[in-house]
């Protein structure tokens, strides 16, 4: 019983750390998105909004290289997309953090489970 209380306490501590990590990641990315949004609205606020036609990959916001290039050029939409990349990275970081958390609790079964989830996420983000 002693063992299981200790375990629950570790789980709880890990939960809280993960919760903070998630909130910090979301607030940080929202901040970046807001900065990019202001630049975008100041520059292009008067043009006509048109999202009726789907342009697919042609705009170049789908690659990290494209986003970094646009961000360095201080383009509003590039900075927004950078913030969105941080946002997407937040739950991925949570899974990566969980691997270490479980390993520290010597729960190797769940360290492997978390590693499998991380591999699936990496497949979608980098190899698709």
């Amino acid at each position, binding site marked *: 019983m002693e063992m299981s209380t200790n375990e629950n306490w570790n789980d709880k501590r890990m939960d809280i750390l993960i919760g903070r990590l998630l909130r910090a990641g979301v607030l940080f990315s929202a901040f970046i998105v807001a900065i990019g949004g202001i630049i975008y609205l100041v520059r292009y606020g008067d043009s006509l909004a048109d999202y009726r036609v789907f342009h697919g990959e042609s705009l170049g916001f789908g690659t990290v290289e494209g986003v970094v290039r646009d961000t360095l050029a201080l383009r509003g939409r590039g900075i927004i997309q950078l913030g969105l990349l941080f946002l997407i990275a937040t739950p991925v970081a949570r899974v990566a953090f969980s691997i270490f958390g479980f390993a520290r609790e010597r729960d190797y*079964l769940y360290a492997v489970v978390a590693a499998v989830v991380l591999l699936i996420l990496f497949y979608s983000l980098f190899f698709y």
Partner: protein
Amino acid sequence: MTVVEFSLVVCAGSVIAGFLGALTGLGGGGLLVPMLILLGVDIHYAIGASLVSVIATSSGAAAAYVREGFSNIRIGMFLEIATTTGALAGATLATHVSGRAIATVLGLVLIGSAYLSRNPRSKEEREVPQDPLATKLRMNGSFPDQGGTREYNVQHVPAGFSLMFAAGALSGLLGIGSGAMKVLAMDRAMKIPFKVSATTSNFMIGVTAAASAGIYLSRGYIEPGLSMPVMLGVLGGSLVGTRVLVKAEVKWLRRVFSVVIVALGIEMLYKGLLGKL
């Protein structure tokens, strides 16, 4: 409409969607996609922007939920294998089918989720025996309840796992969190207490959506100019919604929300089936 006007309209709608989604526990994604489509946005951009907002609300609310100690990270992590694989399948499917097909499925899912939300939780007190597989996977847990802790056992892992794959596939295909189906899998199939199911589901939504996000990004579904007001609006609305959640009388609100969801579902079915998209 100019970009500024359009952004303000979309942001206001997103605040409402995020607020109601958090308050009723039904999530904002189901409301957002039809709303954006009605505003004349292409369905691919709509599901891309919705997916982004789903990640924001799931991660933003997680901090508030985990403090209370209801969520079970082992159950969540194990089932995320199913939801992320499902999300990959669903997002891949989204890149191969027409916008009309996506709208049709969305309509059916909206109507189905409104039906499920009429009676969201199963009977609170239930004692279930230990299941060998769930015990081996160390899923049984406890949560704070009326001053003490309540232990619970988990059942039917394979059924829950399969339902989670389906929930992930719907999330990837439609850009929604599909929280209702995740709760269904845990609460009804796996016999996990409702509070644990609901908070663990919220925890899983962000990771599930991140698995689709890679595919959405590389296919150009995530349009920054549109995603900006959606993400900021939904996040703001949901943060306020989680705050007032405790005080508000949500029963009638859930009913109103369900009616709106059904109406939007019928609208999506109409657009999808009759090609008004």
